[in-house]
């Protein structure tokens, strides 16, 4: 073991005792040294909201397969719940999380303000696709996930020509009691979509929606399950999970809304007080790696790198009419729409 690693390990031991300030700054050593130090730590905790639980576990196992001896404790929950957990960890000065992967991009500037993110530039950051470059804050957090929130429908119950074509179509009384959504107070991506709808159609969109007696779950993935079960027939869902489900033989189809699909960006960062700073950094680097992009692509997630093609089934982003919001709009809008949502739907 080289001296530098020992020093870093000692530093991490101190950090684990709560002295986050003593962390090595800008750990950009070569990957081999990082890997050895990560192996010493043996494990890392990943708060993740971006993908469904099964895909998250799969990613954790893929990482461990590539770096034997470093296990990933996957804590999969919705974006807002993950962020609440993290804030409580920070407030109580009881660090648990090493890498934080959320679905509400505005969490990251908020964490920056609290100086909660570690300064780390992953080698793989350079390989991000052009569309994603500069979306994060270099040296601290990076976009590692993207998906489209779009209209999904069950092919067992809805003919393609009858499917909703745009977002207001979901207000049609013919879907009464059978249209499914996630909850913005839980899901980051649903929150982003809600802000976008308010911007396009005003809050009256949701007042009309309430009359349609929608089924509201928690996660953005909830509607997928409700459609598979036959409980609902259409709704709002993430592209990747919808395609993955359809590939398993479920009667699921997607519809690109004519008024635009919601482009959602999920960022990740290493925590400044991470209990496993090296394993965390190695994992952060891996999240932007070709190998990870391949695992994501295999599970119908949109890769954030150019060198891994997306799996067939989705249109290239360039051919899709996209809706997108700035980080500021999201940061300001999401807390507002959560309150409004609760007043309208409870």
């Amino acid at each position, binding site marked *: 073991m080289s001296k530098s690693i020992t020093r870093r390990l000692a530093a991490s031991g101190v950090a684990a005792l709560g002295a986050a300030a003593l962390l090595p700054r800008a750990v950009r050593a070569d990957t081999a040294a990082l890997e050895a130090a990560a192996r010493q730590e043996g494990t890392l905790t990943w708060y993740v909201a971006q993908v469904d639980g099964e895909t998250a576990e799969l990613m954790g196992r893929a990482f461990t397969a590539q770096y034997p001896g470093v296990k990933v404790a996957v*804590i999969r929950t919705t974006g807002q719940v993950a962020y609440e957990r993290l804030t409580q960890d920070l407030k109580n000065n009881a660090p648990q999380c090493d890498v934080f992967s959320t679905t509400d991009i505005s969490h990251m500037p908020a964490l920056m303000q609290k100086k909660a993110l570690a300064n780390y530039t992953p080698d793989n950051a350079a390989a991000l696709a052009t569309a994603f470059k500069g979306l994060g804050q270099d040296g601290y957090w990076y976009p590692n996930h993207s998906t489209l929130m779009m209209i999904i429908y069950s092919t067992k119950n809805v003919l393609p020509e009858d499917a909703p074509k745009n977002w207001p179509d979901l207000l049609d009384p013919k879907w009464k009691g059978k249209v499914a959504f996630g909850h913005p107070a839980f899901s980051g991506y649903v929150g982003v979509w809600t802000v976008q709808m308010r911007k396009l159609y005003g809050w009256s969109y949701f007042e009309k929606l309430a009359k349609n007696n929608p089924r509201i779950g928690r996660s953005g993935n909830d509607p997928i*399950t409700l459609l598979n079960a036959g409980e609902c027939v259409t709704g709002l869902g993430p592209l990747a999970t919808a395609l993955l489900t359809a590939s398993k033989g479920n009667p699921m189809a997607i519809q690109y809304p004519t008024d635009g699909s919601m482009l959602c960006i999920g960022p990740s960062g290493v925590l400044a007080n991470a209990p496993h700073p090296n394993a965390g950094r190695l994992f952060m680097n891996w999240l932007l790696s070709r190998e990870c992009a391949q695992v994501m692509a295999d599970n119908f997630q949109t890769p954030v790198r150019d060198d891994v093609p997306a799996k067939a089934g989705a249109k290239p982003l360039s051919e899709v009419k996209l809706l997108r919001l700035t980080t500021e709009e999201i940061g300001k809008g999401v807390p507002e729409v959560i309150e409004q949502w609760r007043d309208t739907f409870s």
Partner: protein
Amino acid sequence: MSQAELSHSVPVVAMRRRTFDPLMILWVVLAAALIFLVVNPLFRLVQLSLQDTDTGAFTLLNYVTAYSRPRYLTATWNSLQLGFWVTVLCLLFAVPIAWAVSRTDMPCKGAIRLLVLGAFVTPPYLGSIAWILLAGPNSGWLNRVWMAVTGAQEGLFNIYSFAGLTFNIALYSFPYLFIFTSAALDVVSSEMEDAANILGAGIMRTTLRITLPMILPAILGGAIVTFLEAIALFGTPALIAIPARFNVVTTQLLQFFSQPIRAEVAAAYAVPLLLITVALFGVQRLLVHRRGFVALTGKGGERRITSLGPWRWVMLGYTMLVLSLSVLLPYVVLAQAALSKAWGRGLSLDNLTLHNFYYLLFQHETAAQSVVNSFTYAAAAACIAITLALAIAYIVSRRLLPWAGVLSFVAMAPFVVPGIVLAIAFYAAYAPPPLALYGTATILILAFATRFLPIGYANADAAIRSINPEMEEAVRILGGGRLLAIRRVLAPLMKRSLIGAWLLVFIPATRELSTAMFLYGPKTRTMSVMLMDMSEEGNFESLAALGFLLLASTLIIVGLASSLLGRDFMLRRERG
């Protein structure tokens, strides 16, 4: 004062005069433990509710915030209604069944006891997942059958409704009332019933006018526990009330913990809940005190079985209906989901798989750990609760020290604290420094131990009271010390009832969710929390499989313990 008490208080007084009584140390230790576990957290809860979020200055604003919005008030009102109707339903379920099992010649009693045990060990949130699969308005099994049979366009049942929530909670809360009622029925002797019979009263009249009033205190106690359970539940409302789009107190409390975290407002919101439960117990005391119930001597008399004639089949039918809804149907539908690739595809060979179990046990990084966590924490909590309860009960029942009654009162106090409120109190008291127990196993174990301390105490107390102090006094007259008497006489006599009490703490602790929800950390996730996380994205296949793992492990432990005891621990009291 009776002679027995008089005779044994003399040496104590004499001893105290001679030297410092070492039992004083025990008293101080116990008092300290209770202050730590019960008094301080509740004190911190009230204190927190009166503090400004930023400055910590005294304020009443949190109460204003907590009760200023109609939405928040509605949630409280919903919870009170929920508690009331669940209690009513549970009375309808539990009391007739308990009576039939305890006092009539209804057939299949053994199977029924086993099924009630099944309902008792089923976590309520697992039951609600089963009921979502059974009574989802468009896709639930029952609704699909209804639509197929009648050709109706819409299903008959909607689990996502207030009625659905009430019904679902009642199905898994009634065992409490069953236990209370049947325990009382088992010790009330038939002498008075015989008297009524001799004077010409029929079965109905005797049951309603004689038996029922005698067990009324026990039923009332059970009803209050049921009410408290219903309003303190978190899992079932999260699964059913959120999609049904109404709030109850517990889901509202969770909202105060979302961004921006308003623990102070949550505390303020929780305090009235505490007052309501205290008031309820006050009412119970009043009611119980007004009635003498000397008939509950626990001794003598004989309990005769009432012959129901053909009605016994009606009783059996009703019992089986309740238990099918609570246990049989849900487990069939859960088994189907746990063994399915996609449960929505229904029963077919190509849909069968063991993958869900394999995934949880061998592929999932944290699921197996959560199983281990649940059982370790529950076991540790049960040990702490029983040890404490036993020591306090002993001091109280043998009147070894002054002020013992205070200990007993404090040990029973957590009974009136809903689990979720207790969790917030623990969070307020011990999550921040100096103890900084946030996210540790310790805080979960301590909170579980506190939450179930009253169960432990009530059982330990009953066990000790059932043993005549004369036996210990014999040891002491022969020159043995108190510790020897405890070790060689008391402990062996109480072993069995203590295992029973341990289990009564252990089982609810393995499935406890409302307390764990606020106190867990990523490494201390319990199975209950894990199930809730999985339910978020509606992963019912893995969820059902995890539910089965929980159930199987619990049943194995209960089975082992029951064979140690030589009887089923909760459903039958030894008859005096």
